[in-house]
């Protein structure tokens, strides 16, 4: 079953198109990373899926219903980011209890254990928490709600590394205990990569790629060595990124459509083959067309 289905999805703010011609499907019980630069449209997309914002054009279905104003979609979806606001009159414990009332799958035992583990106190107020603590608390809600569709938009903002690691562990543990569909946007792709099954790579409001993590790992590799040799090798290959590091040396990231024989030949020509991390690949792919920061600065 497809949990989220977008077809020609579009969102405009005024005359500015933030999401453009987006089409993709999210499979049931997968963890998908929503990856893209600042302003690529990640939050806009997630907020439309959450039913907060209305698409300007195209189709968006969540559990086969339009999420904007669907009670069923609302009851089965939870959206977590670092801007959540809870009434000042409720303390942390009461916020958990309130969530328990609304969400049918809410697991209070899990919530309580995480609550105590991360050192929260019942009578603390949400608005008094530090940035990292607030993210941690929101994350507890996102996990304990056990919604069939769970949306995390930059959930680790402000968390220190130890807490982030705990979060990943908790997320994975509870995902195994209670499989659900999770969409996760984060700048820290390197950290969340092991959690992901799929990546939805977004650039300028469009889907650049929607692939499994393993496919992306093999998608490209780097060539390192003599400029002329590499240039002749890459004549009719699609180059993703290149950087000269001396007058005759160059590093080129190229799409992987080489044969075994070509690989052997490359090595014999003295070219070093280097794997490209998913993080780097996504950065290269989402680079603006007219070069990177180096071109601006030089």
């Amino acid at each position: 079953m497809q949990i989220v289905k977008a077809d020609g999805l579009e969102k405009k703010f005024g005359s500015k198109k933030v999401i453009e011609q987006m089409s993709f499907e999210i499979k049931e019980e997968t963890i998908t990373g929503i990856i893209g630069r600042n302003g690529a449209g990640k939050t806009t997309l997630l907020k439309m899926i959450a039913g907060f914002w209305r698409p300007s054009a195209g189709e968006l279905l969540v559990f086969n219903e339009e999420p904007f104003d669907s009670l069923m979609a609302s009851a089965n979806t939870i959206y977590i980011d670092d801007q959540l606001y809870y009434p000042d009159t409720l303390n942390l414990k009461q916020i958990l209890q309130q969530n328990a009332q609304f969400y049918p799958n809410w697991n209070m035992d899990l919530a309580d254990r995480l609550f105590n583990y991360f050192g929260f106190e019942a009578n603390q107020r949400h608005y008094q928490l530090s940035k990292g603590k607030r993210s941690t608390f929101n994350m507890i809600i996102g996990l304990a709600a056990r919604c069939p569709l769970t949306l995390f938009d930059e959930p680790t903002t402000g968390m220190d590394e130890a807490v982030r690691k705990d979060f990943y562990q908790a997320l994975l543990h509870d995902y195994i205990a209670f499989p659900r569909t999770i969409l996760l946007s984060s700048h820290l792709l390197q950290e969340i990569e092991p959690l992901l099954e799929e990546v939805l790579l977004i650039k300028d409001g469009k889907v650049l790629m929607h692939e499994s993590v393993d496919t992306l790992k093999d998608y490209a590799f780097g060539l390192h060595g003599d400029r002329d040799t590499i240039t002749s090798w890459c004549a009719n290959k699609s180059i993703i990124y290149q950087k000269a590091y001396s007058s005759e040396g160059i590093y080129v990231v190229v799409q992987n459509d080489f044969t075994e024989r070509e690989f052997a030949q490359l090595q014999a020509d003295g070219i070093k083959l280097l794997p490209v991390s998913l993080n780097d690949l996504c950065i290269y792919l989402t680079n603006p067309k007219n070069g990177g920061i180096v071109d601006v600065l030089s």
Partner: protein
Amino acid sequence: MISLDSSKPIYVQIAEWLETEILRDRLKKDEKVYSQYQLAEMFTINPATAAKGLTILVNEEILYKKRGLGMFVTKEAKKIIQNKRKTNLLEEKVIDLVNEANYLEINEQSLIDMIKKANEEIRKESK
């Protein structure tokens, strides 16, 4: 616990880790191996990725499935892994080594001498 590096696909690293466990006799023949969920928790990775790692080993007949019970190490597992590593890993490394030697203009005989010397030292240390 091993740490994952970012260069190889995670499922390949999982498969290699299990192979090493078998080579070191930490997993013996007909012994049950970790489930995809155990592996997922051990390495904090997506269970689908862990399953892919296991599937590779099943396809290479290093592991076999028992319906509803899980996966087990085959009798030939160790041998298969040794052969595979010999052809894939070792041969690759030797090619690298020879390439490197050629850049440094070290002739074949000196390279062989170096290998002999290294081997002697390892033997000495293990005594």
